[in-house]
């Protein structure tokens, strides 16, 4: 007993602390690695080389970029609202990294085994909106404000479909806990009975982290760079890495919720999780290479007129089947 805490508790605290650090470092490093992978893959799919000079196969390009971005002047425009301008990029990193806390990477590797895991994820993703809104507002720039207005509408709308699509999975597992949801997929991956939910979740997730083809908030042809027009140096870097963290997070979520998480034969659980998640990360890049950006009203109409009815129908049918079986 030390300070009224038993050795067993201290051990569990130390293990959780180590797991937290490993997960934080792992997710940030994975997000950074996504940058050269994306550029090389885009090059491959667009019949060009991509960056191939720095290091073997251009793999050290990201290191060069990082050194450059760290030594850039940390400039805040004189007309900006300084406090909010500084907080904004921190919010997106914070909320996205917090969401990694509830993801079960293997049977024993979950930092916070919350009973309301899925709701926690939704809460974190809805808080992420503030980053973009405050960035756009505090910049005091019309392009930034337009970009953040679009984001607010887009993210609030697509959050609805994201939450609804998850209801089917929750009904099947009978729990909000992500570990239980993975366990419930031992017989069959959720992607088979919940295929519409999977498609809706993937689209909504893509819109939630505003990746191409849903990158309207930063559509460079019309809005220069959208909400981060005024940002430079490491603050811009945080938005940039935040976006890739978002890709890693959504890929991990798709793996956990619809593709059986760590479950799989022969290989250890973590390897299965990594392989599945990595497949979806590459799929995000393929989406960027292969799709065009819709117009803003098309995006909204698609969400409310197509995704919402399908999501509601999916919930109703799943609910009816679950009730009939019990």
């Amino acid at each position, binding site marked *: 007993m030390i300070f009224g805490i038993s050795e067993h508790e201290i051990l569990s605290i130390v293990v959780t602390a180590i797991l937290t650090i490993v997960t934080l470092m792992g997710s940030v490093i994975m997000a950074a690695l996504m940058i050269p992978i994306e550029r090389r893959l885009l090059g491959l799919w667009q019949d060009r080389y991509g960056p191939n000079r720095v290091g073997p196969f251009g793999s050290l390009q990201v290191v060069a970029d990082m050194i450059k971005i760290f030594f850039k002047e940390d400039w805040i425009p004189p007309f900006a609202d300084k406090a909010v301008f500084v907080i904004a990029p921190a919010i997106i990193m914070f909320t996205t990294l917090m969401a990694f806390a509830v993801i079960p990477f293997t049977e024993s590797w979950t930092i916070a085994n919350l009973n309301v895991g899925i709701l926690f994820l939704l809460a974190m993703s*809805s*808080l992420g*909106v*503030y980053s973009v809104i405050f960035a756009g*507002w505090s910049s005091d720039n019309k392009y930034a404000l337009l970009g953040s207005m679009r984001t*607010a509408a887009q993210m609030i709308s697509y959050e609805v479909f994201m939450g609804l699509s998850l209801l089917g999975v929750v009904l099947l597992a009978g729990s909000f806990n992500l570990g239980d949801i993975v366990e419930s997929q031992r017989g069959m991956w959720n992607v088979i009975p919940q295929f519409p939910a999977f498609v809706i979740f993937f689209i909504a997730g893509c819109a939630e982290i505003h990746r191409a083809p849903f990158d309207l908030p930063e559509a460079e042809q019309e809005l220069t760079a959208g909400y981060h027009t005024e940002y430079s140096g490491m603050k811009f870097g945080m938005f940039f890495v935040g976006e890739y963290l978002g890709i890693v997070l959504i890929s991990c979520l798709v793996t956990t919720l619809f593709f059986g998480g760590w479950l799989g034969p022969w290989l250890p659980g973590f390897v299965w999780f990594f392989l599945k998640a990595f497949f979806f990360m590459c799929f995000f890049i393929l989406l960027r290479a292969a799709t065009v950006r819709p117009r803003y009203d098309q995006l909204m109409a698609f969400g409310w007129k197509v995704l919402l009815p399908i999501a509601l129908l999916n919930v109703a049918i799943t609910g009816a089947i679950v009730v009939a079986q019990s």
Partner: protein
Amino acid sequence: METTFFIAGIVALAATLRTITCANPVHALLYLITSLLAVAIDFYALGAAFAATLEVVVYAGAVMVLFVFVVMMLNLNQETVTRERHWLRPKLWVGPSVFAAILLIAMVWSMTVGGAIGGIEGTPLSANAVGMALFGPYVLVVELAAFLLLAALVVAIHIGRDERNEARWKAEHGERETTQAGEQQ
């Protein structure tokens, strides 16, 4: 958990105080969001994890975003801040302070003298129990609330539509894609 509760409680109080006294509306909203998050942590410390996450999802994540959205459009500048400061004169604090003092007295009384009479009894509810209650004994209320919200939605769309503008758009661009007219306003 008790320490967490009190730390979060103090943060909630301080943030709420700043929400009221802050002259810059967006900063005030930031403080209000912080206060909501602190209240959510308080719920969590009390063992009501479901209520805590709902607080974040609904209030901090959805309602406040709409508030920020509206305030963002108001084209705020230094002038607004000065005007707001001018509005927040000490004389205005008298009325609210009296009522707040009454509340404080009531609370202190109920915690000390009234504590013997007994507080409100209850156990924290799980998501399951909330759902059962909503769609069991309270299903009529839920349906009525749904009616009300639907009516509000229809009215908002009706008021928000500008028929003249829509007619002009149709005349200029033919019949295609009237949805864009809504975008144009």
